[in-house]
């Protein structure tokens, strides 16, 4: 098994050995379900997951930092990073392993929300395309949020700081979508490209555009790269 997978397997076990995973995942499902069924589904009177998907850019802002904050920060503060990194593993394998573990937990949380889809389907005909596209988009967007969290966790040895940094970066990318109309005309296209939620709107409508996929993959790539460089920086600082 590759080192990255060994690391992520250990990390997943740590998630489920502690109450963190259960608390975070149930809080997420509860809030996501409450918002969807309480405010959106019946008001819209339409058997669609649209409302549920629309809440996700906001909810991920809390979920992703919560599950990623301790990934590297804790290893630094407890000193286990030294043990881990002096084993024959590359720094990027450590970062990737952590990322995959957080993605597994995020996917588990999203898996629970499939219950919403089943409920909606019982209420009326559910359009499959947007539903499948929406979940695919959630995984992509979740990957971007999680990668931001992993990066923030690589910067510090304090997991609370990691949470706040991840939250602030996510919030900045999130809020852009809502301030576009106040921006100068010339900046609007670039702003709408950087805004994290814009791309998700397309996917959740069932339209999978390569530009959106590329956007999320680039955010993941850049953040994981920066996280790796941050780990490596111990070698030349």
């Amino acid at each position, binding site marked *: *098994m590759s*080192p990255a997978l*060994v*690391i992520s397997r*250990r990390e997943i*076990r*740590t998630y489920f*050995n*502690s109450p963190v995973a259960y608390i975070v995942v149930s809080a997420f499902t509860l809030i996501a379900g409450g918002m969807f069924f309480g405010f959106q589904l019946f008001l819209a009177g339409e058997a669609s997951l649209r409302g549920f998907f629309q809440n996700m850019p906001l909810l991920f802002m809390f979920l992703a930092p919560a599950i990623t904050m301790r990934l590297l920060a804790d290893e630094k503060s*407890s*000193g*286990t*990073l*030294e*043990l*881990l*990194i*002096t*084993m*024959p*593993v*590359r720094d990027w394998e450590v970062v990737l392993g952590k990322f995959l573990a957080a993605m597994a937990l995020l996917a588990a949380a999203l898996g629970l929300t499939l219950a919403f889809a089943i409920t909606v389907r019982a209420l009326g005909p559910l359009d499959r395309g947007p539903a499948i596209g929406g979940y695919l988009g959630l995984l992509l967007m979740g990957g971007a949020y999680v990668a931001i969290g992993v990066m923030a966790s690589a910067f510090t040895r304090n997991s609370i700081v990691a949470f706040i940094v991840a939250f602030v970066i996510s919030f900045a990318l999130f809020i852009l979508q809502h301030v576009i109309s106040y921006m100068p005309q010339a900046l609007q296209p670039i702003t709408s490209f950087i805004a994290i939620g814009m791309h998700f709107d397309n996917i959740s409508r069932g339209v999978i555009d390569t530009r959106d996929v590329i956007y999320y993959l680039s955010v993941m790539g850049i953040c994981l790269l920066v996280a790796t460089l941050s780990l490596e920086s*111990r*070698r*030349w*600082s």
Partner: protein
Amino acid sequence: MSDLMIEVEDLTKNYGLTRAVNKVSFSVKRGEVLGFLGPNGAGKSTTMKMLTCYLAPTAGRAMVAGHDVFSDSLEVRKRVGYLPEDTPIYRDMTVVEFLEFAAALRGMDRSKIAGRIKEIGLRCGLGDVAGKLVGELSKGFRQRVGLAQAMLHDPDIVILDEPTSGLDPNQIVEIRSLIKEIGREKTVILSTHILPEVQATCSRVVIINDGKLVADGTPDELRARTHGGRYRVVVESNGVAKEAIRDQLARLAGVTRCELITGEEGSHSFALDAGGTNDLRKPIFRAAVDNRWTLLELARESASLEDVFRNLTIGEEGKS
């Protein structure tokens, strides 16, 4: 491959403006147990972190098991077992889980992992705690888990950073004998600031102070390098004033310090420190004969590693 397992040349590490390690050079042969000695903050840990590829040197070169620690670090890490200071181990794993994790990360053959963990666990005395969480173990057991982890993959070189710090005397004896056993087949570097540890376990000593290497040799060689020595003189007190004897002794050539120490009743005891290489036993005896003292005891104490260490480390500071 040559017999030199570790070659360090002008190794230097800066943290910002402070120089933690300053042009340190030494080498370790196969099968040696090298004691890395120095006061706290002398740069021992930093040097070990460079040898294990956790930190990169600012300047200089280190070859470990024939590979450069900077350009070929993965190969180095495959061949080295490392126990970092304070034994950081994931507290939420059981001993066996942790060793399995380490074995998997090291890419060990799956079919052999269970057998190897059992074997190394027995050697390190982990049989009874195999299923316990690392976080629940005492410091001594945690240290053994760390040692087991460092030897799991049968490395050529084992690097141990303060393996006995924070242990009680019984645990220290156990861990030391374990290290000695490891040293029979492997090249070992261990750092410590406890001198008896070096005498008990090491075949060679490197002393580092303030980032610089100040001595390198076998414990015996280092002891021989310290000049002079300490003498103990006990004289029967029948009517002789102790101050008179002290003044007489202090006047002998080569004596740097003469002190009255408490001894048995009816006798005066003195401790003499002497510089130079002359044997002072003869002059002391003659002084006793000339003054008609009854000499009860006269002994020369050879310099201990403590003296060597103090000479080298405190002496340096005093000069600068």
